[in-house]
């Protein structure tokens, strides 16, 4: 899905706000975003990943029974910036997930969870989280809305 002008503007704003970058670095990064197809290529290839190093948040269920490290990698952080999803939204969604686990006495297993729910601003967000036995959960991808239900197509060889 190509990036929209609005998404590009969000990333431009995020880069312009960075105090750890020199003006020259900012100019270089922003010049890539001048060209939408170049911008698409740069997102997909992970060119901007170094700007968003992994971050970890301690997240607990409301009753404190569940305590997890929620890790968010560069890929998911860039997706979040593009879609105006805040770090707090991801934490909020994961906390609600932990509350549901507690309330319904669900057993968490080491696998992928696609969690869909609204943030405090009533935006519907989905996150795909790799849940691990060591009480870490890693967000692999995030986006607005629900997961698309697409059928698998054909096959091609390289």
């Amino acid at each position, binding site marked *: 899905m190509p990036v929209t002008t609005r998404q590009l503007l969000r990333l431009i704003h995020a880069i312009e706000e960075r105090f750890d970058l020199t003006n020259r670095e900012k100019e270089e990064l922003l010049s890539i975003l001048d060209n939408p197809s170049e911008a698409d290529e740069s997102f997909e290839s992970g060119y901007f990943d170094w700007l968003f190093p992994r971050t970890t948040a301690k997240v607990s269920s409301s009753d404190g029974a569940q305590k997890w490290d929620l890790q968010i990698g560069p890929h998911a952080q860039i997706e979040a910036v593009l879609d105006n999803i805040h770090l707090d939204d991801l934490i909020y969604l994961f906390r609600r997930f932990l509350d549901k686990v507690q309330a319904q006495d669900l057993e968490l297993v080491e696998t992928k*969870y696609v969690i869909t729910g609204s943030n405090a601003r009533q935006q519907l967000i989905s996150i795909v989280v790799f849940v691990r036995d060591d009480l870490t959960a890693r967000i692999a991808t995030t986006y607005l809305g629900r997961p698309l239900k697409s059928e698998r197509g054909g096959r091609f060889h390289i």
Partner: protein
Amino acid sequence: MLQEKNLAGRIQSLALKSEETVELPPLQLTSAQVTAEFEEDLVDRSELMATLERGSVLDPVRESRHETIFSVDGPTKNFWIKVLHSRGDVSRIERVHIIGVTRRGSETKHIELD
């Protein structure tokens, strides 16, 4: 003009994109060519390298909005990966980036909060 030159120099590797299953030929990658979103996942790097070395089938990940994340099964693990190839030659794989790792065969669970 200078800017265009710079761009061409900067983004040399492109991500493989497909809505369809992709069959990769056997790939010989060095350790340095396999990176990870979360460095802890590099403990499974050798299994991924061995899997890709035999030739592999990549399924586009339907839970992602992008066509650049693929799922591939190793003997014991399932990997979500991005495959980066050189500009102008999709058969020249330059790097494989691990997005996530789970046990092979583990089911994806969908949770609705609202």
